């Protein structure tokens, strides 16, 4: 079964993260907690992180949303764990460029995140993909 262009959006790795989300849940007494929602569609995320000496030592998310928003949250937590704040924020800005269809530096290892590239071609879904990243940015900016 295939639909024109849809396979670019619903890549196997995205569906894998949606079905088996990494870092799902909440860190009790996490040092950073962010709640964010997308008021136009009802998606919501509860993001908890532990930041020690400028390093994101742990990150978990909880929430409700579509395959794109939830898989993106899963990939995001995976990508920032063990990274320092600047690196995490850099990833976020690269991700934002990716969603806008802009060029972005290729010196960062994006791993699974690259699979979300196709979202840029579906303007209605970009906000789904960026929700968790905006939550992470908001949380970490306060820690700087």
């Amino acid at each position: 079964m295939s639909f024109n262009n849809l396979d670019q959006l619903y890549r196997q790795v995205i569906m894998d993260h949606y079905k088996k989300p990494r870092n799902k849940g909440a860190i009790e007494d996490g040092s950073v907690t962010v709640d964010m929602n997308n008021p136009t569609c009802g998606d919501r995320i509860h993001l908890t992180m532990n930041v020690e000496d400028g390093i994101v030592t742990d990150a978990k998310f909880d929430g409700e949303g579509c395959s794109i928003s939830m898989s993106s949250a899963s990939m995001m937590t995976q990508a920032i764990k063990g990274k320092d704040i600047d690196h995490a924020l850099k990833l976020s800005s690269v991700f934002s460029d990716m969603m806008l269809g802009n060029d972005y530096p290729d010196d960062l290892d994006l791993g699974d995140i690259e699979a979300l590239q196709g979202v840029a071609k579906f303007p209605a879904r970009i906000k789904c993909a960026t929700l968790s990243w905006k939550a992470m940015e908001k949380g970490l900016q306060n820690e700087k």
Partner: protein
Amino acid sequence: MNAAELRKHFPILDQEVNGYPLVYLDSAATSQKPVQVIEAVNDYYRHSNSNVHRGVHTLGNRATDLYEGARDKVRKFINAASTKEIVFLRGTTTALNLVAQSYGRANVKEGDEIVITTMEHHSNIIPWQQLAKVTGATLKYIPLQEDGTISLEDVRNTITPNTKIVSVMMVSNVLGTINPIEEITKIAHENGAVMVVDGAQAAPHLAIDVQKLNCDFFAFSGHKMCGPTGIGALYGRQALLEEMEPIEFGGEMIDFVGLYESTWKELPWKFEGGTPIIAGAVGLGAAIDFLSEIGLDNIEQHEHKLASYAMDTLSDIPGIVIFGPQRGKERASVVTFNLDDVHPHDVATVLDAEGIAVRAGHHCAQPLMKWCQVSATARASFYLYNTEEDIDRLAASLLKTKEYFSDVF
């Protein structure tokens, strides 16, 4: 009524989306516009544009006649007694806010009650929440039955002699429930409350007679009934409107202006501060002509058939959950559903890939979504230009969606 013929009046429907002929199933959000409406607005700007109620010149008179002529069309459309009872506003939201801020603040005090239902659109919740906060009144909800309808017994139990305002949507934009407005109005009046009707999803689809409903206020939007965006109307009982203070002050709504005191124009203009929505009113007038020529009864009948056909066709899809009155029950032509575990955004994206436009999300009814125990749903809504073939296309694509997501999972 022949929907396939009527479709030809809607140029936007004659296009391909993502390689498929467009199937537009989002009319509850906004309807498409027939060429008659597009041309009326175009014609107004080409030949008659001028400000109203002040020009001595010919165009000024022409614009005023068109604007006030549109008001009379609205009056006839909902069978109000007088054009004094028809206030042109931006839409249902603005109209409900006017009632809450003007009538509400003057007549609701601490200890009073405002009664609405759990199925309301945000535009018929938040104005009352705010009014309750400011006045210290209590906001009460008429609960829903399991099938998404309300029972008159619950209405009687919720409305009390302390209730000052009852505000209920006539047709639910999510559940498709058609509420018994006449009966609720009766109960509201028996308790001394005024009855406000959110008619946004009713006016496009059902013949409205405000005198028969006997409601005190009726709000609706032009853009959901083939008219332009940015224009709607509030019907208000004349005796109530006479007593109400405007909430917007400035040009156009005044009688005499002094340095420290001013007086207002008579009804309905005291509520229409600033240069009015002239082109919008002209477009709404053309939409009313268009709908009236087809006949609201014919539209209602066509949509009734479509709703039954949609319920029969969609209910048979394995894994579908349809909210609101089920197959065989009275309902409006809007079908809100979820499909297996596929998130409604994903459903809407897949349908869009096949040229089918549906809405996904909370439909501006978060308390209702909570009642449905979901965070979001998909919604297909129909109008006079939709056909059974559109529903067949929807059903076929939903089956493909199921298959697609069972493949990728």
